[in-house]
């Protein structure tokens, strides 16, 4: 049994969830509290990964980040290797896929926080960033954690975007869902079934864990 795809999947999904959580919670706060032009457009664009087929999303990412694009060239000149078809590429694909789940769920939770509590904090002299970190986000934590858990689930299961951006290179970029696909293609039903079962068990275990922590931590 080759454990590489599982370890890679966990690593990619964890990193992607971390990035999607930072970007998503920050973005959610901005969208919930900020009043600026283009806000609706920003939210629509950030939600695109939910609507677009993952392969289309992957294609766009490949066009924007690929070796022939300005971003891809800049990346290669700085880091010495291409961004696409690497583990980093897989993390980017999973991050973009997970982002809207973190963002939308966190935004709804932030908007539900009673503005009078925030106002009270302000009258006590807290600056706006401390109101956000010490009042709003702690009160919205259930929704925020739920969003991050959803994002992790999405990142762990991504196939379409990852296979376009990171490819299917066994031992390098072959994540669990891609390994399942590969085994099916090769006619290796036993391996496909085992991998699919392991992925399902791991996903359920992680989500149970997150649920438990989010309840215990409240």
């Amino acid at each position, binding site marked *: 049994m080759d454990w590489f795809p599982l370890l890679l999947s966990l690593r990619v999904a964890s990193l992607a969830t971390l990035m999607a959580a930072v970007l998503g919670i920050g973005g959610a706060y901005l969208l919930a509290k900020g009043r600026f032009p283009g806000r609706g457009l920003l939210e629509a664009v950030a939600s695109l990964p939910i609507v677009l087929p993952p392969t289309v999303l992957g294609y766009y990412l490949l066009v924007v980040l690929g070796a022939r694009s300005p971003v891809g060239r800049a990346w290669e000149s700085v880091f010495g290797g291409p961004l696409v078809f690497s583990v980093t590429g897989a993390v980017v694909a999973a991050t973009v896929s997970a982002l809207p789940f973190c963002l939308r769920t966190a935004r709804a939770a932030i908007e539900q926080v009673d503005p009078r509590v925030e106002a009270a904090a302000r009258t006590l002299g807290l600056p706006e960033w401390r109101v956000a970190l010490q009042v709003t986000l702690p009160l919205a934590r259930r929704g925020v954690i739920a969003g991050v858990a959803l994002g992790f689930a999405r990142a762990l299961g991504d196939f379409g975007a990852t296979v376009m951006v990171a*490819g299917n290179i066994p*031992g390098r970029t072959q994540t669990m869902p891609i390994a399942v696909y590969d085994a099916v293609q090769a006619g290796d039903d036993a391996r496909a079934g085992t991998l699919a079962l392991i992925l399902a068990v791991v996903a359920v275990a992680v989500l149970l864990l997150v649920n438990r922590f989010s309840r215990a931590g409240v």
Partner: protein
Amino acid sequence: MKRLLLVLLLLLSGCSAQAATEDGPLLVAAASDLGPAFTELGQVFEQETGRAVTFTFGSSGQLSQQIVNGAPFEVFASASATFVDDVVKAGQADAATVADYALGRIVVWSRGDTGPQASLADLVQPRFRRIAVANPEHAPYGVAAVEALQGAGVYDRVQSRLVYGENVSDTLRLASSGNADVAIVALSLATVEDGGRFTEVPAAAHRPLRQSLVVTAEQGRAQAAEDFAELVVSEPGRAVLARYGFAPPEG
């Protein structure tokens, strides 16, 4: 919450992926009709050179797109010379290393438990409700299948019943899983697939499937890639390919 973060950090630190090194396995992108044959050649290569080979199988069109977009494959073995040209034109390969290594053949494949063996002309029968071919947009075997159907004069009558596989291996999977009644696939896959029977389509029924390869490794790091390419076109390499049903290249 703190404990959760700890678990996360352990995950991130505990399992770093192996870095790409020059001693790492040779990365070969190969058309999916080569799956069984190249897996055997990979073992031969490993015994001879001590270097492991990692294969990525897919449709030639998709693999060539990945290489053009910067995928780190060191050898590209296509089921069609056209896609090798694309990679060379994009500046991702050394034109001097292009070599034809075989001719591909197609067969009509069906499960052993689904009635009598079928030929191309039989496909008009209504018992073949779904006929799987590789997607002709990017899979050379799909192009050959469509040409053979047209040549047999049945394409117009079966067109509405065609279903497309992502690549020729996926196409065989559609039929072997019983989701399509019959498939037009590579002889090199049919020879090793259990539980089926097949009729060979004459080589003249479609334009030759000129299987061509090229070294796509970076300059200065191409030695192992060139060695592998040499193995494929060598006498022992051809003997392995012939066993899976590949004909030797023209000329």
